[in-house]
């Protein structure tokens, strides 16, 4: 919204949690003895992104050009008190939700996509490339690239490409070139296709194709989540939320968000870590992907193809194949290292919810608040509803991050 107050709500700096973690963050490491995938990052990430990946700087200035685009795509996003829901639940406390679905591409993903595309553009590269599963990240990448007039080459897991034709339309409207992966745009893709022309594709194959494409065409690879730089960019969510709460004189007792790779969750909650020691923070995952309860806190591959480095995180194993759940964005086997550390040290709690709970939560949220949440965000809402039930008589101020809208995922209710 254009108003005098906008510039006060969008922060000037991103927040990086590294210097405020309870213990040192185990750095990424190479999984192979001879080949440095950390060095590979040097060739495929914009220099600035790489720097931010390993910086100890607590505050990172957001470039003016990025702030301008944040405003263009709908930042600050609203923080709304869910009064109808409070009444429906007969809850004496307060429930707020931050709505990242209000951004142009309908989820928080655009926050880091814009930053990464900006840095890539600044370094004079030819374009950007990435992989996408359900298509949220591909959409954000396509739009961000378009905003900075860069071509975007997107490798979409073939089975999703076929199942979700609307996502392809969205990416095309944003000027993105989308191909089903495996594709014949890369040697790696061609090899797989020659072995099995009907290969359904995987995120790992998509990453490998995107990385190869980046190296061959002087493109840069865009990182969707998990890595620290992405979480830093997403901190715009939490920083806005803090400011918005401050403006109305509220203090968050509880923060709740959902975790795929951890980017919306980290972006939303980490800015509260340094100065809100008493705020309860809860990370929700799907029952079907129980990374925090059944996963190990260990070094593991970020991607099943082993192209990217290993990081220390909660992981169900890089080759973990979850059931085809409706929340595509939560199928990831691990979680961002900083988030994993905070969970391991007990600063952040975790919760798991099942499909039925999530669907009901989305329904309740829709018919009280009007917002049809993304299936991923539905998990956070379900945890919030359970929390209210379990703490009925404590008048807490609960803030939940609704990371995206679900208008392109309605088929789960069919």
């Amino acid at each position, binding site marked *: 919204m254009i108003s005098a107050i906008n510039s006060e709500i969008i922060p000037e700096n991103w927040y990086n949690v590294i210097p405020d973690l309870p*213990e040192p963050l185990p*750095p990424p490491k190479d999984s192979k*003895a001879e080949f440095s995938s*950390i*060095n590979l990052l*040097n060739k495929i990430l914009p*220099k600035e992104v*790489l720097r931010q990946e*390993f910086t100890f700087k607590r505050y990172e200035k957001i470039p003016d050009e990025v702030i301008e685009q944040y405003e263009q795509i709908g930042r600050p996003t609203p923080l709304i008190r869910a009064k109808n829901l409070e009444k429906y639940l007969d809850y004496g406390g307060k429930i707020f939700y931050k709505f990242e679905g209000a951004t142009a591409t309908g989820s928080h993903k655009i926050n880091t996509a814009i930053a990464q595309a900006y840095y890539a553009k600044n370094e004079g590269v030819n374009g950007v490339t990435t992989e996408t599963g359900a298509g949220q990240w591909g959409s954000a990448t396509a739009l961000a690239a378009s905003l900075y007039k860069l071509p975007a080459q997107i490798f979409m897991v073939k089975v999703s490409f076929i199942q979700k034709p609307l996502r392809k339309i969205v990416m095309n409207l944003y000027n993105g070139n989308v191909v089903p992966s495996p594709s014949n745009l890369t040697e790696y893709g061609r090899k797989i296709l020659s072995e099995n022309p009907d290969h359904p594709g995987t995120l790992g194959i998509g990453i490998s194709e995107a990385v190869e494409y980046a190296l061959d065409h002087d493109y840069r690879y865009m990182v969707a989540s998990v890595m620290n730089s992405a979480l830093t960019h997403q901190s715009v969510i939490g920083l806005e939320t803090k400011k918005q709460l401050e403006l109305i004189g509220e203090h968050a007792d509880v923060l709740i968000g959902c975790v795929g790779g951890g980017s919306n969750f980290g972006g939303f909650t980490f800015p509260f870590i340094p100065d809100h020691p008493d705020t309860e923070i809860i990370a929700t995952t799907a029952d079907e992907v129980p990374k925090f309860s059944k996963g190990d806190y260990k070094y593991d591959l970020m991607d099943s193809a082993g192209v990217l480095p290993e990081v220390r995180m909660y992981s169900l194993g890089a080759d973990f194949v979850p059931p085809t759940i409706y929340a595509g964005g939560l199928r990831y086997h691990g979680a961002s290292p900083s988030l994993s550390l905070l969970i391991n040290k007990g600063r952040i709690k975790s919760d798991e919810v099942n499909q039925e709970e999530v669907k009901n939560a989305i329904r309740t949220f829709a018919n009280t608040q009007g917002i049809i949440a993304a299936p991923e965000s539905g998990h956070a809402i379900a945890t919030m509803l359970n929390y209210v039930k379990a703490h009925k008589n404590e008048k807490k101020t609960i803030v939940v991050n609704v990371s995206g809208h679900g208008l392109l995922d309605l088929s789960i209710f069919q």
Partner: protein
Amino acid sequence: MKNLIPYFTLGYPDNNTLKDFLMAMPVNKINYIEFGFPSDDPRYDGPTIRITHRVGNQNFNDGFYKPIFQYFKSNGIKMYSLSYYSDIGPKFEDFISYLISRGFSGIIIPDLIIDYYSEAEEKISYLNNKNFEYIPFFSPSTPDHIIKKIAEMTSSWIYYGLQPSTGIDIPYEIDYTTERINQLLPGREITYGFGIKTEEDIKQLMKNGGSGVAIGSYIEKMLEKNDKKGFLDYINKIRGVLDDE
């Protein structure tokens, strides 16, 4: 005088070549030396040094190096061991006794506060009691409060790695780094290492209050090529840069 601290993985590329380089080194140009004890899992090292560990593991032989350690000790050069806690943890006290017996002044344990943070305090106290220097190893990902806390538990110099792992070319920011460190650790002796890129950077680090630099991957590459002259020239050059400051 600013410190020049060369690093060598013991046993790389083979015992004799390494000895040749070590004995050729002008002892008046250095005051500390860092020896890597070959690790089974040198996970916070970059690809260059990772290989030296694998090779060194095959070759290392205490008997061979005992007189060399003796030589440095008698020349007044302080020796520091770089060891992974994942290797030495199970036999920690024995290993420290061994290092003392070989004339070492202290130890750098890169994974101690990262992967074994809960044991760090006890081990550091143990070393303090033994009067054996524990050299804190910090990096960009070490949280502020931990830098402060660990530094307070020690009084020796501090090793600050500019990179997440050795020999990796990731952008770093010298001014911000030294500002942070000077603020967190005023008056402390700081050695910078892990992938310093240029002489300019060294100058800048020293100008901003650094007390020395550690050089590793570059030296290992010259050992690999058996380029002793290159190695000696490099030592002289860096010495010059440090003395300029």
